[in-house]
Every structure is written in C-alpha cells, then in structure tokens.
C-alpha cells in the first residue's frame, strides 16, 4: 500500500475549436497510506480527471504525481501498480466472470495455481462464487459492480481508484454496497481514492474528503470537520442536506440586522466581526440549528426570529419548515411534533453556537 501525492497538478484540455479548458487548476494534496479519501463535487468539477491522472490514463499538463515514493509522471498505467473501478464497470463482455477477474494476473504471467487461488479468494470475499462462469450480461447491476471491484482486488495493487462505482445502482443497493465497500476497506487495509458527486456517499465512506469545484480544491478535511467548519460558502452549501441557510445581515455594534428582525450578539463575536462594522455579512446556519420550539436544552433563547411559515414538509423523523428572511428562503429542520402550518406566524430559535459568518465578496468563512 502507498500514499498518493499531488504537487501543483494542472490539467488543461486543448481543443482546436474551443480553445483551452482548465479541468484541474493547481491541485495539492496528500493521501496517506491506507486512507480512504473521497473526491466530491458537482458534475464537471474535475473529479474523474484527477482520478484518471492518478491512474495514468490522462497526462497532467504540469505538476508531479507521487505514488508511494516514486514520481509516476511518466509511467504507463500498468506500471503504476494501481487498480481502478470504472463508472460503467468496463467488464469484458465476452469473458466469463472468472476470466474477467483473472485477466490482469494472466497478463502478468502469474502461475496458474496462484491465479486460481486469488480469483477464488476475491470471489468469496465478494460473494461471486455461484456466478463465476457466467458472462457479465447475465449479472445484475450490483453483481457486476462486485465483479469490477473483484477485478481490482485480485491484483493487490498499491492504490484502489473508484470512479462513482455506485451511481448506476438503485437506492437500496447503493446503501448496501456502501457498507460492503467500507468493510472491504477495513479488510484490505488499502489506500482508496473514491470519486462521487453524492455528498451522503462522501460523508459515510470517506475518512477524509476533498471537496472540489470548477477544478479547484475547496477544502480537504474529515467529514465531521467539513460539516462543522466549512471553509467557504461552497463547502457549506454542498455538504449537509438540506444545505446550510445563508441570510444577509448587517452588523451594527452588537446587533445583526436583517429584514424583519435582528439578533443581539455577544461582545466577543462582535469584536471578531469588527472589520465588517456597518457592512453586509452572510450568516450561515444549518437547518438543524434552527428550531421551532423552546425545547429543553436549547442553549440560548435570545436568538429568535418571528417568521411566517410558507411550506411544511413531513419527513417522518423530522419536519422541514420553510420561511423567508428578505428574499432568501430559510429551511428549519424541526421536531416532527412541532406545530406548524403554512401561513402560521412562528418564532424560530437559532442556535448561535453553531452559526458561521461569510464574507459576501470572497465567500470565505470569517474566523472571529
């Protein structure tokens, strides 16, 4: 197993007609040995491109890629000692599952007995024994996905690369496979780089998450850290569901003014935000940190806002309540027994221990 490092990696696609397009703009990160790291971000942000550069299927425009202790810039995919699970699985359609699993080892001219043992082992780990002599088209989506993983694990590579392996599966199977992948990681003690655009998958699988947008890394942190301390509005809005609310406020001394209300903040907070005196600010608060009831244990009752409920969504375990502050819709995730109906005037309580402030210009979080 090995670590993976990106040093100032840029990737530009040059098209004769459309000009140059920067898919990855100066990436730097270190993925530690045996770590499970997830690349997450919206479509087109450069996740696949980054992964393919690790694999060697795409050549970076500049920068260095290091796997283990080797700079692999000029190495062919087969010499990088990696295994990749493709989004469309890329199983060889004319080969049986056994042949699919053994193809790599056969190319390496490993002894027959060794290959058989490896294939049998992978098949048993992934529960593929009963279908080992079938062709890929005779398998379900989840089974194909397991074959694709199996093809990777028979080779004992230094690094596993997964490109949205679960995106073709239905919701139930996806949850099941997520758990299986997590267990597989523990069992194999492997370095895994996993690409997804699904933040739930990222949060549940990743030990650390690399959040990307427009080819730029936004933040690299553990799931809890990302959730608790997003570095900018993009990360704050991307991680968490429903996403964080952003409210336009103006600071006047100890008072944060907004349309239809105000909050009086403690001195320490006001001092930390002194640069923004009489200037616009963005207050970020997650839906789960706005409650509709004066519940026991709510730390501070001073931060209240009187709003008018627009919509209530009953999700069973909780209700989502929508109201407006200025021209922004704010979502509150409230206890399912909280009374509320559209048109009702309701006082919402903000948990100010958990709020963030963002600079409206730079969209960066303000450390106060």
């Amino acid at each position, binding site marked *: 197993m090995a670590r993976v490092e990106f040093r100032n990696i840029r990737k530009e696609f040059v098209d004769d007609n459309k000009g140059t397009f920067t898919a990855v703009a100066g990436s730097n990160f270190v993925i530690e040995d045996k770590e499970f790291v997830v690349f997450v971000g919206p479509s087109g942000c450069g996740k696949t491109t980054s992964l393919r550069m690790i*694999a*060697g*299927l795409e050549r970076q425009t500049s920068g260095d890629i290091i796997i283990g202790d080797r700079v692999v810039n000029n190495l*062919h*995919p*087969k010499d990088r000692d*990696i*295994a*990749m699970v*493709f989004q*469309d699985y*890329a*199983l*060889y*359609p*004319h080969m049986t599952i056994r042949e699919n699993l053994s*193809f*790599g080892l056969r*190319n*390496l001219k490993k002894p027959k007995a060794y290959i058989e043992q490896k294939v049998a082992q992978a098949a048993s780990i992934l529960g593929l024994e009963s279908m080992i002599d079938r*062709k890929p088209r005779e398998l379900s989506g989840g089974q194909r996905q397991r074959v694709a993983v199996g*093809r990777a694990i028979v*080779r004992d590579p230094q690094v596993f690369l997964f490109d949205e392996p679960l995106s073709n599966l239905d919701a139930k199977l996806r949850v099941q496979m997520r758990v299986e992948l997590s267990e597989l990681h523990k069992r194999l003690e492997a370095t895994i780089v996993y690409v997804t655009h699904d933040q739930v998958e990222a949060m549940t699988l990743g030990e650390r998450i690399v959040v990307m947008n427009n080819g730029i890394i936004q933040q690299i942190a553990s799931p809890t850290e990302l959730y608790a301390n997003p570095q900018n509005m993009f990360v704050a809005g991307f991680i968490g569901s429903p996403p964080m609310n952003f409210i336009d406020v103006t600071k006047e001394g100890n008072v944060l003014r907004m349309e239809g209300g105000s909050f009086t903040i403690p001195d320490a907070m006001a001092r930390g935000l002194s640069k923004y005196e009489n200037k616009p600010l963005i207050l970020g608060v997650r839906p789960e940190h706005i409650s509709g009831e004066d519940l026991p244990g709510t730390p501070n009752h001073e931060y209240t806002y009187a709003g008018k409920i627009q919509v209530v969504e009953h999700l069973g375990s909780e209700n989502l309540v929508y109201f407006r502050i200025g021209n922004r819709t704010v979502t509150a995730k409230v206890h399912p027994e909280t009374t509320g109906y559209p048109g009702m005037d309701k006082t919402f309580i903000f948990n100010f221990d958990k709020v963030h402030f963002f600079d409206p210009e730079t969209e960066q979080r303000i450390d106060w």
Partner: protein
Amino acid sequence: MQTAPAQSRPPRTPMKGYMREYGWAYLFILAPVLLFLIFTLYPVASAFLMSFQQYSVMGSEWIGTDNYTRMVKDEVFWKSMWNTVLFTVGTVPVNIIITYALSFFIFQMKDKWQTFFKATMYLPAVASGVTISVVWLAIFDPTHAGLLNRFIGLFGFDPVIWLGKSDTALFSLILMNWLGSHGAGIILYLAAMGGIPKSLYEAADIDHASGWSKFWRITWPLMKPTTLYLLVTGVITSFQVFISVYLMTQGGPNFATTTIAYLIYNTAFNFYEFGLASAQSFVLAALIIVISVIQFKYFSSDVEY
C-alpha cells in the same frame, strides 16, 4: 387484441368493416408479393422442373434425374467445383485479414482522415465489376508493358503470362480479388470498433495488457459478429464469382478458371443445355445454403452480441 367489447362499432358486417379498414394494406402488400411470385418464385420453380427435363423451346422432354447423373459424371463439373473452392479458400480469409488490418489502421487516425479513407476504400464498390475487370486486364497484360510485369521486373523477375497459363490464371484472379474492394467490410469493422467502449481498453491498460493482448483478447473477440457476417457473405459471393472470369479468362486456359457460376453460364448459353444448367444451379444453391448454415453453427456458438 380484441379483448375489449367493441361497443362503438357494432359488428354488423365484420368482413366488410375489416376490408374497409385493412383493404389498402393488402393492396400495398400485393405489389411486392406479385413481383416476388413472377420474378423469383416462378423462375426458381420452373428451373427446378427444368432440371429434370431435356429442355427445348419446341417442347421439353421429361428425363428424370438424368441431368444430375450427367453432371456428376462430368469432369469439368468437378474441376469447376474444385476451382470455386480454391478461389473461395484463397480469397475470403485473406480478404477478411486485409479488411481487418486496414480498418485497424484507419481506426487509429483522426476523424478527418478516417472519413477520407472510408470514402476512398469504398470507391471501388461503386465502380462496376466490368470496369474493374478491364483495368485489371491492363494490369495483367502478359507483355513487358503490363503493369504488374513491370513491377515484378523491378525485382528482376521475367514477365509472367498471368491469365494465359493454367498454373497462374486462378491465382491471378485471386490476387485481383485481394486488392479489390474492401470498402464495405471496412465500414462495418470501423463501426464495430467504434462500438467498443474506450473504457474497456483503459481497464485493459490497468490490467497490464500488452498491445497484442488487447488486440487478441479484446478487440478480435468483440469483432466476431462482424467477422462472421463478412465470412458468410464473402463465401456466398465468391461461390458465385462470374464477372471477372467471364471478362478476363472465359474459364480458361484448359478450364483452370472455370468456376461453377461460369460453368452454369456456359452450359446454358453456349451449349443451350438449360436442363443441365438448372441442375448445376440447384447444386450450387444447395451447397451455399449448407456452407452458410455450417458457418453460423460453428462460429456463432460464442459470439457476443
């Protein structure tokens, strides 16, 4: 279809209503069916009857299987059968390899060049077989002036009487076929190659596959349906090879290039033995059907569609 009770249209005169609704359809179908009956089925059926007759315009005589026994006793028939088999074995597999190799190289090119080569390779298919044969007559010209003779002259070989000697004549026809039209096959192969997902090759790259391994273990097996198609159609066409023989060698010298199709033509239109020619035609047809079925059986067993 008729599960729901037809309430809106009471079934007063079902036949009349049916004809009003579908009558046109039958009329349209009638035209091609008539064409088929008159120009395909009738000639085939009458040829079948003819093969048991001593045919003459003035009145045919029923002679049972005499035509067939005559045919199998005829040395020239067996010679032509052998020539046809040689021609097929000599052309079809080689053509498939050439077509495949050309496609493989064209496939590596940029789109613009692909289009260019597809078009140029297809061009001979548009030209008539007659034109091509005439051009090849010039290429095979037995004198020093002949194109091919000049070419081999560069390597110090003496001129060859390509079409005029029995030991080179059939080979010359085969050679001409090799260098003939690969356009249709190339287009099919290119389409099939384009249909293989790129990620298969990327997976193979990661799986340590060499160029040879990718070709032999991935591309070739996935080309099998196309290859099978080219094989079957190629064999059918080459069993019927006629134009080049007719125009270039007339089956000679000494029957060295007499193929079955040419023999049939000769029997019918030079010797006016229409009954015998019909019998030969039926044997050729039966042979083609049997060989096609065998090819399908044998090759499609593990074809991946």
